[in-house]
């Protein structure tokens, strides 16, 4: 599949000297949904802004649909729709005048039928002549999406589409995004909710401190994130893992007083019950059990450390 967006060594250093992007390389395939996952301040919005023309890259090249976003900005930007993080809308305009304005701004000829259909798809049609200030937050978000799609773009950027949105609306947004994917549009969204990335994306890119740490298929990344640890405190320290349980992924820590079992929460059987039974059979006395899941933050920290080590090597 051809790359819709090609980012090569993209750098962004702001005037104050702050480096928001430190050489990002990324290829986004046509028709996929890519989630950029990262903590606040990681550079997600900067990366999107640099692709869309809100800020200018200070290094590297970015191409959208084969067009350079700096030298061929008209061609590149005509392919892009952007839904910003904040609900920024002219309060006194109507839904209709807002989407019509956006379409014209992107140089597309008026097409009432297309815009009507778009509003219907986003359940906005009965609000067509409502003033934007009268709409609820969820509706405003839909208007922003309608504006971004008004010129029928090939690539849609959604910056934190569910920030400050309640659970029900979040589900709603996920449905809208998957419906959009059906139309063939390439979607890039940013989020700091891992569940959101998992629910929507085909691939996930993890970004932290201006660097893209990894890009991976959602399923395989989730498998990594789905690991859980069971920490079994032992009444009597062991010198080695009993042979009868050597098939399990076990490590001994704290001079043999702690047995750690790593398992996959997604596996059909976690093997916990059998492990406990096997340990009892081997005469191991358990004093306490605790389980831990590696959080997104842990993953970030792990990835950043790994990255630093590679840098040092």
């Amino acid at each position: 599949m051809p790359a819709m967006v090609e980012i090569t060594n993209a750098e962004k250093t702001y005037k104050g000297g702050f480096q928001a992007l430190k050489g990002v390389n990324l290829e986004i395939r046509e028709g996929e949904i890519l989630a950029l996952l990262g903590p606040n301040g990681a550079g997600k919005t900067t990366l999107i802004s640099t692709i869309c023309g809100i800020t200018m890259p200070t290094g590297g090249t970015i191409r959208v649909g084969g067009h350079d976003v700096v030298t061929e900005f008209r061609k590149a930007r005509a392919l892009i729709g952007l839904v910003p993080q904040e609900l920024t809308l002219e309060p006194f305009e109507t839904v209709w005048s807002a989407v019509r304005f956006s379409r014209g701004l992107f140089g597309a000829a008026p097409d009432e039928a297309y815009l009507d259909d778009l509003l219907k798809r986003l359940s906005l049609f009965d609000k067509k002549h409502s003033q934007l200030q009268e709409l609820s937050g969820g509706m405003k978000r839909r208007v922003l999406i309608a504006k971004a799609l008004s010129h029928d773009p090939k690539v849609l950027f959604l910056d934190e589409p569910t920030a400050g949105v309640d659970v029900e609306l979040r589900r709603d947004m996920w449905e809208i995004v998957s419906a959009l994917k059906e139309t063939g549009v390439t979607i890039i969204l940013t989020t700091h909710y891992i569940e959101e990335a998992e629910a929507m994306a085909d691939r996930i890119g993890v970004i932290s401190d201006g660097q893209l740490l990894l890009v991976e298929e959602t399923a395989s990344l989730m498998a990594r994130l789905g690991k859980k640890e069971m920490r079994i405190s032992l009444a009597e320290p062991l010198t080695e893992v009993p042979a009868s349980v050597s098939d399990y992924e076990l490590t001994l820590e704290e001079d043999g007083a702690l047995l750690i079992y790593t398992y996959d929460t997604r596996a059909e059987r976690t093997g916990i019950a059998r492990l406990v039974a096997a340990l009892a059979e081997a005469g191991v006395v358990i004093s306490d059990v605790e389980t831990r899941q590696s959080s997104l933050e842990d993953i970030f920290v792990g990835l950043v450390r790994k990255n630093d080590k590679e840098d040092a090597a």
Partner: protein
Amino acid sequence: MNWTAVWSIYRFEMARFVRTLLQSLISPVISTSLYFVVFGAAIGSRIDEVEGVSYGAFIVPGLIMLTVMTQAISNASFGIYFPKFIGTIYELLSAPISFLEVILGYVGAAATKSLFIGLMILLTASFFVELEVQNWPAMLAFLVLTCTSFALFGFIIGIWASNFEQLQLVPLLVVTPLVFLGGSFYSISMLPEAWQTVALFNPVVYLVSGFRWSFFGMADVPVAVSLLAIAGFTLLCTLAVWWIFRTGWRIRS
């Protein structure tokens, strides 16, 4: 050049004007009428004529200029400042357009609005005083040039301003005094000699003078100089806008 985008911006801005048509027109018309009552009737009755023109008619070009300049500045500065303030500027920045389209759309709309208001004042004035325009093409040319150049100036202020106070600052502190001291309500020749020299440093003098010439055929400074002055001001604003366009100053980081 993306003319569809220019037209979209222009129409969007004009729609705001039409939506608030009543207040956009009523306030300049009322304030003009007040000027006529105060300067034309109350004070003007004590001044017979200025260089052969009744005082009431004499102040009409100055009044139009005063309103047109402030309206062009405030419309254009607000037009571009508002998207910056509420954040919708993101859409202009991400659209496949250059600053040229943005300027044509916003400045064009602001100039159209102020031109319309200027003509409304002319119409209002014609109810108060007997008015004759000697040179219609010159009058319209001066009016259009002033609307355009001051809308450009307003656009620059709108880009520069980072809060609402700054948006008001330049019109209030610079433009209003310059217009009042620019011979809107008097002929420069009525000033003491030393002040006449000072007045020649006021760019508005040239605009009002040239504009008045198109009405009555008389001027404080030669018409050619007036034309040069307005052309110079337009050029200056265009250069400033071009520089903003080149550097993305205060718009794009």
